[in-house]
């Protein structure tokens, strides 16, 4: 039927125009990473570092992201917050020196291939390593985000944390799935 054909063509054309329209996809929030960013902020309050490993009071405490940053603007609200008497900073890091200046280091999924080398280089550093790579905590990382029925949950490797002298609060452990290397 000619009418139906025209209707279809118009519908497809309208869909293509809507699809090509700039904007919505670009500024749509990624709630998953907003939740993960808020978790990173909370982790700072539920983990104890050996006092001598933290920067002096009044200076900065740092969350680093290594590899392709999946957070977009989701980490922005964290910047400048006061945690443990220090000012929270967020930075993308790549050099070994920068990595070691962080208290929490988020290792992006883009670093999956070089994960063994990264974890080896951070073995003695008092850094909470966090990722979202499958099996991250079992491979020696400390916290790994996992997806569970539309929610962000996390695994914790308590042995890996202990080996660095880090103490994880029981409130955090209660919510975590505790795994071993």
């Amino acid at each position: 039927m000619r009418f139906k054909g025209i209707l279809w063509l118009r519908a497809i054309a309208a869909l293509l125009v809507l699809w090509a329209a700039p904007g919505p996809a670009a500024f749509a929030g990624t709630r998953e990473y907003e939740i993960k960013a808020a978790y990173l902020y909370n982790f700072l309050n539920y983990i104890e570092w050996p006092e001598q490993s933290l920067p002096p009071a009044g200076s900065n405490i740092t969350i680093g992201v290594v590899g392709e940053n999946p957070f977009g603007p989701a980490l922005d609200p964290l910047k400048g917050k006061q945690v443990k008497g220090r000012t929270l900073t967020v930075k993308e890091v790549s050099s070994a020196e920068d990595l070691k200046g962080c208290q929490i280091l988020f290792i992006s999924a883009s670093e999956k291939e070089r994960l063994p080398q990264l974890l080896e280089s951070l073995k003695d550093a008092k850094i909470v390593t966090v990722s979202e790579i499958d099996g991250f905590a079992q491979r020696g990382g400390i916290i790994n985000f996992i997806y569970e029925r539309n929610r962000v949950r996390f695994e914790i490797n308590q042995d890996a944390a202990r080996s660095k002298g880090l103490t994880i609060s029981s409130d955090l452990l209660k919510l975590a799935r505790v795994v071993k290397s």
Partner: protein
Amino acid sequence: MNKRYCKNTVRGLRLAFVLCGLLSLSMMESRAPAMGMDMDMAPFMKPGDLTGLSLQELYNLDIVQMNVLGAHTHPAGEFMVGYQFMYMDMEGIRSGGHAISPAEVFAQNPSFAFAHTRMEMEEHMFDVMYAPSDRLTLMAMLSYKQMSMVHLTRANTTFSQHGDGINDLQVMGMYTLLGDIRKGGNRLVLDGGMSFPTGSIDVRDHRLGDPSQPLQKLEYPMQPGSGTYALLPGLTYLGDAGRWAWGAQTIETIRLGRNSSSYRLGNEYLGSAWGAYGVCEWFAPYMRLEGKVWGNVHGADPAYGAVPATAEARPDKQAGQRVNALFGFDVYVPKGIMMGNRFTIEGGFPIYEHLTGPQLGLSWTINVGWTYAF
């Protein structure tokens, strides 16, 4: 524009006015939350910053929120159950694009003993959805229909007949072709499904509506089922940005074969486009345009005889085209023991109708729905 559409337009404007009133009230409330409901709107007002939430709150926070703006598909592992009540009031006879009187129906169709002047339909629909993955959502839908029709005889007397029964079971899959439910923004979803002939096509009531008379089979529109399998292909576009959500959908019903009464209902082509605005975390009004094109019956049910006594029993007088304007709002419960429940109320009327009549035109319709995702 005839009188009926004038009446509908006035009705629609009233509905829109009421919705605008509710919208303004809600906006006032969202500006002065302390004076309104005791609900924390912070996550909705500043969607980027969740640092104010406790560890436990983060732990229980849904990535894809089944909020007032809806999602249509679901994230992996999520179930949804729903119930919808639909009411349609059909009054006034139409042929082509204009209204005609019962006298004209009888004059133009000497074989008709009756003209139908009003039909009411109530439908109770139950649906369940489950998402085995972020890309795929499965749905099953079954409804129960109750219908009544008022007949006018040539002697100017009236009587009613009633029919009810289970409708056809529909099973569908919705696959996200483009986009990501977890990220929002633009999405294109391919819909595909099948309708199973679970509905009755042999609903009967007493002749002339008189209990002392024998039962007779009711006409095509009074049968709740189709008696045939049908394919349900479709395409859905979804978009959202900030407080706005919009979308468009087309679903076809392609009927297959013939049923046990030797006929097949006409195919249906349904198109819909909508826009919604989330005034606050729990309230979103929306507007929707819905167009439907449906065909004549193929074949004929021998139960109606070689010369049917009404238009509704004539296979060649069933087709039509209609565009409805619908206004509604969604209410979502974001916290507390009722958290996750969502209620929808939608009402509307036709703004365009062309029927291969004489057929009853749609006067107005209202839908009330509830869904719960877990």
